[in-house]
């Protein structure tokens, strides 16, 4: 187990909700924290009576969304200045503009669940001025699925959550990839129909 996760788990046990909310916020905003494993562990801790299960799910969704919205708002309002601060070249953003434009909703949804690109997509969505409704809707759905799946899995696995953490991560990544592939296929099919 890596040092960051071990430290995060110790803090979770010591400072409970304050640590949980801080870790979720920072992980969703910019830091590469193992958020999904933290959710899995918190689900297990909830099954042991250390956290309140429904309250933790609600708080996690609210804080993860608040953090995502902050990233989105920053680049939506300050755009290039924020990108420069983050050492992201504007040309890199415009290159992916077209791709993201086609798959905005699903990109936001998938990056909440799998992979480390959630914070980058928030910044990008703000920079590309993705509509508020679209961002909030797919951000909510992605966070809801991610948080509920990991926390319920942790709650069910309880004392043995660590033994299955690898398998759970793989299953979620495979499901995320499958959803993405289905969307790409649908998109390509629609494009082909338009050309005809």
């Amino acid at each position, binding site marked *: 187990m890596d040092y960051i996760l*071990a430290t995060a788990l*110790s803090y979770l046990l*010591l400072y409970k909700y304050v640590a949980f909310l801080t870790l979720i916020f920072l992980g969703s905003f910019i830091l590469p924290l193992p958020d999904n494993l933290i959710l899995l562990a918190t689900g297990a801790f909830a099954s042991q009576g250390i956290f309140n299960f429904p309250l933790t799910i609600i708080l996690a969704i609210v804080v993860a969304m608040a953090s995502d919205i902050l990233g989105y708002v920053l680049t939506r309002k300050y755009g290039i200045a924020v990108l420069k601060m983050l050492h992201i070249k504007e040309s890199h953003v415009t290159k992916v503009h077209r791709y993201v434009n086609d798959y905005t*909703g*699903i990109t936001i949804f998938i990056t909440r669940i799998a992979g480390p690109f959630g914070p980058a997509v928030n910044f990008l969505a703000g920079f590309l001025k993705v509509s508020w409704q679209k961002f909030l809707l797919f951000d909510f759905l992605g966070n809801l699925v991610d948080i509920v799946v990991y926390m319920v899995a942790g709650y069910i696995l*309880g004392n*043995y959550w660590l033994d*299955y953490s690898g398998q759970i991560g793989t299953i979620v990544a495979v499901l995320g990839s499958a959803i993405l592939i*289905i969307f790409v296929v649908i998109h390509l099919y629609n494009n082909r129909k338009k050309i005809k």
Partner: protein
Amino acid sequence: MKDFWSKNVKKLVALIVAIAVIAGVLSVVHHYFPQARPAGLSHRLLQAFQNSHGNLTAADSGLIRSWMTFDYVNKLFKLPADYLSGQLVISDTHYPNISIRTYAKNSHLNESVVLGEVEQDVRSYMLRAQ
């Protein structure tokens, strides 16, 4: 607002259908291709579910990790609050709200040695309790 929903309703439906299709395919594979299931996975998951709220035994002392606090270990194994501090002669004022790793570091002890001692003490207590 209306425009937003009319534009995205197809994507939302597709998303829900995609999740449902994947869940359906997985359940069909699970039902009709038992050889594709990891050996004993259902049984292990069921066992894990049953144990998740059950009492731990001496054999479970291997679950202890150095990131765990003494307070957590006490709760997990239902140990008296002063049992581990007595066994390990812990004088750290942060006990039990300190992780095994931090305690070992603060006391200039080897982390894995302390972890091994905690496991041993928990195992002994649980065997006596059984």
